[in-house]
């Protein structure tokens, strides 16, 4: 395994690659280039970024970069799927897809690793993970109350995202009244696309326990930690059962 850590998009992105017969260094370089390009295009801080120009209405539709169109489309899809509980258009400073871009970029960067011919790879973008390989990756879901502990371990084939406001209190807003809302301590969603998993996770935290209905019946699965300390999962959530069983055996021995 090859490990690389890239500081980009305001966080640390950990990349773990099983090279197989592929050129891991070249693939990692390509993947990092994708992350940095997304950082430039979607920066809310840089006045000259494509996102800033779009927000100021300076770009006509035909001038929008292809990446911007893709993220706009993804944002609309995420807002629809979450019943408006994740809505990049309902942000204080206007359209702000930041919550989606990190997952979108990481998912695309993992595509680069795959195209680069490596056997398996996992990219952890600040707590949101996209991966692929012949076997699922074992990803711990952190305990929101203790960074040293996990609440469960998931077997993840494609993507897992977690939201909660304990790292940055007050950052999650209910799009309906634009006030801070964290009705769950934490929500974690597993599925095929990291950006949508992240959107679902954020929408769950904002919406609360009832939001499970919006995830279930989709190809995504969720596990949540409620404010009163309960932990609920949709029935298909890929819990690494062996780990839980052995933990039970240890505690009862």
């Amino acid at each position, binding site marked *: 395994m*090859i*490990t690389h*850590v890239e*500081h980009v998009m*305001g*966080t*640390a992105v*950990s990349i*773990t690659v099983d090279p197989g017969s592929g050129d891991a260094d070249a693939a990692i370089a390509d993947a990092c280039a994708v992350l940095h390009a997304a950082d430039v295009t979607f920066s809310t801080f840089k006045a000259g970024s494509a996102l800033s120009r779009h927000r100021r209405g300076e770009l006509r539709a035909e001038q929008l970069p292809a990446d911007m169109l893709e993220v706009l489309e993804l944002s609309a899809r995420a807002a629809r799927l979450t019943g408006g509980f994740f809505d990049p258009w309902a942000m204080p400073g206007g359209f702000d897809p930041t919550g989606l871009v*990190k997952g979108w970029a990481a998912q695309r960067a993992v595509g680069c690793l795959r195209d680069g011919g490596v056997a398996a790879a*996992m990219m*952890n973008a*600040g*707590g*949101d*993970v996209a*991966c692929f390989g012949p076997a699922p*990756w*074992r*990803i*711990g*879901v*952190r*305990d*929101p109350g203790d*960074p*040293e*502990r*996990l*609440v*469960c*371990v998931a077997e993840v084939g494609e993507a*897992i995202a*977690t*939201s*909660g*406001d*304990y*790292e*940055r209190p007050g950052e999650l807003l209910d799009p309906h009244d634009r006030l801070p809302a964290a009705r769950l301590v*934490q929500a*974690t969603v597993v599925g095929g696309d990291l950006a949508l998993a992240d959107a679902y996770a954020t929408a769950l935290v904002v919406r609360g326990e009832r939001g*499970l*209905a919006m995830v*279930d019946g989709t190809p995504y699965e969720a596990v949540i930690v409620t404010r009163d300390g*309960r*932990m*609920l*999962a949709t*029935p*298909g*959530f890929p*819990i690494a*059962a*062996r*780990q*839980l*069983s052995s*933990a*039970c055996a240890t505690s009862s021995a």
Partner: protein
Amino acid sequence: MRRSTMVAGGAVLGIAGVIALPRPSTPQQVAVAGNSAATGSANGTGSTASAAETTTGTAASGASTRAASTKPAARTVTGSLATDQYGQLQVKLTIRNGRITKVGFSTFVANDGHSVQIDQFAAPVLIRETIAAQSAHIQGVSGATYTSGAYQQSLQAAIDKAGLNA
């Protein structure tokens, strides 16, 4: 089908908790809670109710007292097909040493698209586990987005460090 996914180990006590859900009776919860105990209004809920109640009792009253008198072989209890206004649900439990070791829905059919959501909202399993990360043999950690600075104190950083030093 997807709904038949088994949940093992640590989820067990929680399942009983969900089946005997002592929460306010909202329409969303009636689908499962109603099947086991609360309303008894629908056809065919009898067997399912007794299976769920029996195992709930076992889990709640402490498995150790039951374990001695129960033979070690695993047995499977399948509730009868419960039908209510939302659809059909059949619970399947695996019991070993008096403890539920697996809980699943062997059948999960909803009447219409709306019911799917109601049933599935009622179906989530409750998990009771906290795992010490160092013993979990994990390859990554998912959590709320950390800053570049907070990363240094994260479990993911520790895992990366181990990988970088390998």
